[in-house]
């Protein structure tokens, strides 16, 4: 029970409490206040003053897809290595050993693509899928050719009935695989004709599409009532990855960004004009880049994503130290590129807000494919020294300042 003298005080406080908690729902009277901390807004466009392509081999061809073919300046080969000894019974006789290929993608023009004539070579030097970058397998051309195989390319239009091709593994090759021979380096799938790139799925892909080794034969159990039974099993590759060689040429005033071949575009924007007023703060910002769809060797893969990264350059003079661009990559935003897109706009608000407030942290931007180990494609973006001023990379900044 509250004492009598406390109750009136409590009631008084509750009244004040209710008043104090009431939020002002409008600017009652504040229009008359001589100092209203407001702000002025503005929009600034800044064009890139430096840009460059960047081709690196720090990522491998390991991924969901194996790619074989030649088109638009790309040559793609794929390597496979099986180790079937782990699935073999104690006593067996193999009647059939074959590798199943199911074509999942054909590009760039699947309707017009010829069937892929594929050379199958025996790899004679060590590799693994975690390190299969562009410079690995340097003696590829000297590997002995074991066989050829014709892969149909009508798969992309007939998803209900997946065309399948089998390559019968010769005994000489199979024996090397099943005996755990230390020189089992697998096989290399190489295109013999051009005009298409065929994608098949790897062991990391969908099971129903993945390349697999199928073994069929007889097993002989070790028991007194000796009786032979049919036996069969399937196996995915221990190592499988593709290797892409980009032989396209650089075009002055353009920046190549590639998917599947790790080619990125770097660009730098001077922010001095925005950062000159330290009280200016960014409300919104976009990075605009423009594609040249007419550039030779453009290879569009509809649906591929691009991403921008900030904090890319340790040294904004990256031309002297290109490896600096490997560090501090921060993916912030991505957008989907469609075949009829000309302009890509990345919202870079948060990245740029930090750069404006701390100009020393302006390390430029990188544009790259979101999935760099995905289907091979290549776009040419207008560079800072493009002949068309309006198509140069630019930052659009909406800012306010007190």
């Amino acid at each position, binding site marked *: 029970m509250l004492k009598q003298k406390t109750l009136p005080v409590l009631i008084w406080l509750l009244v004040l409490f209710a008043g104090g908690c009431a939020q*002002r729902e409008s600017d009652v009277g*504040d229009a008359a206040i001589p100092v209203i901390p407001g702000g002025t807004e503005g929009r600034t466009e800044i064009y890139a003053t430096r840009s460059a392509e960047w081709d690196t081999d720090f990522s491998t061809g390991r991924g969901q897809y194996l790619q074989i073919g030649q088109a638009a300046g790309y040559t793609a080969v794929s390597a496979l290595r099986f180790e079937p000894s782990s699935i073999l019974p104690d006593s067996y006789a193999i009647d059939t050993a074959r590798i199943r290929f199911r074509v999942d993608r054909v590009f760039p023009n699947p309707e017009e693509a010829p069937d892929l004539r594929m050379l199958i070579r025996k790899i004679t030097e060590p590799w693994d899928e975690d390190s299969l970058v562009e410079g690995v397998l340097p003696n590829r051309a000297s590997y002995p050719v074991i066989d050829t195989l014709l892969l149909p390319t009508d798969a992309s239009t007939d998803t209900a009935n997946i065309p399948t091709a089998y390559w019968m593994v010769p005994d000489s090759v199979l024996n090397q695989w099943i005996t755990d021979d230390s020189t089992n380096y697998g096989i290399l799938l190489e295109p013999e004709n051009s005009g298409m790139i065929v994608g098949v799925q790897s062991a990391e892909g969908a099971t129903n599409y993945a390349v697999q080794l199928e073994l069929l034969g007889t097993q002989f159990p070790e028991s007194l009532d000796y009786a032979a039974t049919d036996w069969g099993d399937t196996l995915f590759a221990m190592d499988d990855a593709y290797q892409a060689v980009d032989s396209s040429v650089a075009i002055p005033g353009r920046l190549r960004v590639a998917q599947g071949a790790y080619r990125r575009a770097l660009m730098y924007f001077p922010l001095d004009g925005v950062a000159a007023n330290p009280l200016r703060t960014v409300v919104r910002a976009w990075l605009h880049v423009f594609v040249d769809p007419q550039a030779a060797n453009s290879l569009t893969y509809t649906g591929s994503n691009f991403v921008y990264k900030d904090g890319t350059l340790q040294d904004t003079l990256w031309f002297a130290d290109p490896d600096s661009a490997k560090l501090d990559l921060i993916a912030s935003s991505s957008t989907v590129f469609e075949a009829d897109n000309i302009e890509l706009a990345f919202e870079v*608000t948060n990245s740029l807000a930090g750069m404006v407030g701390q100009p020393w942290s302006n390390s430029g931007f990188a544009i790259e494919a979101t999935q760099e180990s995905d289907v091979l494609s290549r776009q040419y973006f207008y560079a800072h020294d493009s002949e068309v001023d309006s198509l140069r990379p630019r930052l659009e900044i909406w800012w306010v300042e007190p």
Partner: protein
Amino acid sequence: MRLLILLALAQGALAGGSVFGPQPSGDPLVTGGVRSVGLGGAGLALWDSLGMHSDNAAAAANLTGTCLRAGLFTALYSVDDGINTDTDSEFGWQAFRLYLNVHPRYKMGIGIDPISHTDFRSFGNDSLSFETDSGTVYENFESRKVWLGSETDIRWDHAVSLSRRFALGASIAFRSSYLEANHTLDFPTSGSSGGARDAIFHDVQRFRGFWGGLSFLAKPTDKLTFGGFWQSEANGDWDFERAVNHGGTSQISEPSGKRPGGFGAGISYRWHRSWTAYLDTRSQTWAVEHYGPLYENTLLEKKSATSVSFGVEKLGGTRNTDEGFDRWDYRGGFAYRQQPWQTFDEAGKTGDVNELALTLGLSIPLAQQAGKLHIALEAGQRSAADADVTETFSRFYLQLDMHERWFKRERRTLRD
């Protein structure tokens, strides 16, 4: 104890003050003590040993012992701008003083006085416009503004009795002023303006300086008393800092900063043993240089603040036969104040703000003559006619003057 706990809890919950708080002077508090508040702010000519007007340093000359003063207040504000109304409330401290009876002819006081304060916040909807290649684009946001601040004097007062009817006072004070203005542009997370980055502006201005003052209290007759004070301009430093939320800052320091001085004079007339009337007037001139860096380029002009206060008091009896309510002091008062504020009308012209207030007060003697509890209630209205803004307010004050008994030991030590 329960009362203190409730007050402490309420302090955390109460937020918001006068709409005029963001003015350069803040919202000035009625200084001098709660007894003076009950007299409408008058009382510079108070000739008393307890509850004296603390703006008049010479008034301490009549102290007969050591005195500790502490006060607080709560306030309720309601503002109307012709379209909307709003009510808010606040809680604050009033004063803290310690007076020492150093010598029968010399008294000294130290204390902290809140001079003004600012606590105002508002929000509304606003938009930014950006001219783009495809036309004007508007970014809508919620505008949140918060002003907070206070101005405080740390005083060192001296009172010297030159005769039984005349005393002089001198004051030295350190004045500290703090005012911050925050503006948040809070963009929505969805919709057409979704995803824009919130912007936060944060302005802070500080003033630190010193001022000096002289005062007097004269009683030429048994019924008539005069009192007055003069305060010099405070000279010191302005520091101004402006920041935005991405870390950029701008700092300005002005070593030749000033805050305004002022003067006041009062007269009292006691026509009965228990009845006394008081009449005071004050004046202060706010020049542009007094406003501070935050108010540069705001078109504010030189402004004079004047006030006239009138109060009547009935003192309680002190005879042994007086009991209960007969021992209480009762008072009432009236004040007219032209505040040093300037408001803008729709055409951008500045106008005056006038204030009228009625006050009531009482003082309750504590047991065993330990001191007095002063209570005052002030209700008034501020009108900025040019800007069509009217604010009514009511403030409730409490102040405790504790007298000598608790400080005998200190007094003895000082006399050793």
